[in-house]
């Protein structure tokens, strides 16, 4: 992991190099950047260290095969989708139950994100955010405030509130999602009132 001499090259540039000469070596360099994340995602779904390791190797192979077939633009989002689908398939095989395949429209997601970032530049959105924060349930409000506004780590938030680390994380993640929903709702209402 140490001394990656390709650190200065972006994922996109590595992909372009691969598409130019079709040498798997480029994919090796690119995928190595995500080994730990893939191990984490596999563990999250499969709940078994050995199976998670095997899953990462299988995801590597799948990615190498797929990238020879078609062009990918947003590598990280695409890789996440491949990894998640692989894990869901493994779970389906072991449980004999059907699972829904994730097939996000990555291009649209990227566009939506660009729109969101433009929205952020808008001071009015920040006013709405401040208002929405007060509408969260007390636990989420407390954790989001301590984490984002007072810049405390999960551990410090946990020490201060008495919640477990897992609870803190969950309150922050859900609080963040709820804030987005509340803001979007408020913006929608404003549009309708105009």
């Amino acid at each position: 992991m140490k001394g990656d001499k390709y650190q200065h090259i972006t994922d996109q540039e590595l992909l372009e190099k691969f598409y130019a000469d079709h040498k798997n070596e480029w994919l090796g360099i690119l995928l190595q950047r995500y080994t730990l994340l893939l191990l984490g995602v596999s563990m999250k779904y499969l709940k078994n260290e050995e199976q998670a390791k095997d899953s990462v190797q299988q995801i590597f192979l799948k990615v190498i095969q797929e990238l020879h077939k078609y062009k990918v633009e947003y590598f990280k989002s695409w890789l996440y989708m491949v990894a998640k689908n692989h894990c869901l398939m493994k779970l389906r095989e072991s449980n004999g139950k059907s699972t829904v395949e994730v097939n996000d429209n990555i291009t649209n997601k990227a566009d939506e994100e660009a729109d969101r970032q433009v929205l952020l530049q808008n001071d009015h959105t920040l006013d709405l955010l401040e208002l929405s924060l007060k509408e969260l349930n007390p636990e989420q409000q407390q954790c989001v405030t301590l984490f984002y506004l007072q810049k405390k780590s999960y551990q410090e938030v946990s020490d201060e509130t008495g919640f477990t680390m897992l609870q803190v994380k969950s309150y922050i993640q859900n609080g963040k999602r709820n804030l987005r929903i509340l803001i979007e709702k408020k913006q929608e209402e404003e549009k309708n009132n105009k």
Partner: protein
Amino acid sequence: MSENYKDILSNLSTSVDQETLLLYLQGKLSEDKKHEIEKQLLQTEFDEEAMDGLQEFKDKEQLQYMVEMLNRDLKKKTEKKKRRREKMNIKDQPWLYVSILILIIILALSYIFIRRMLTNE
């Protein structure tokens, strides 16, 4: 303060490098640094889910070894393919096709010659 509010809504991907992530998981970072990493890991679903999974590994010190093993295996796979292709490229050399063609012509001529000899006899 408004910058802090922006952090809540931001979803721009700013990847945390694996070494820093390992240090975080092993509890070897300061509280300030921890907060920075945690904030960045909330930016995408990929990072969020990976973090949830990584926390479930019993021995966090072993993670680095696992990653190194997986990377070594990946490197072998990607290099092997490259060598195989290089071998194929050698076969793709034009002189090889010319030699095969010449050999076929010689064989055909020999066949015709022998056949004529036998017919004349």
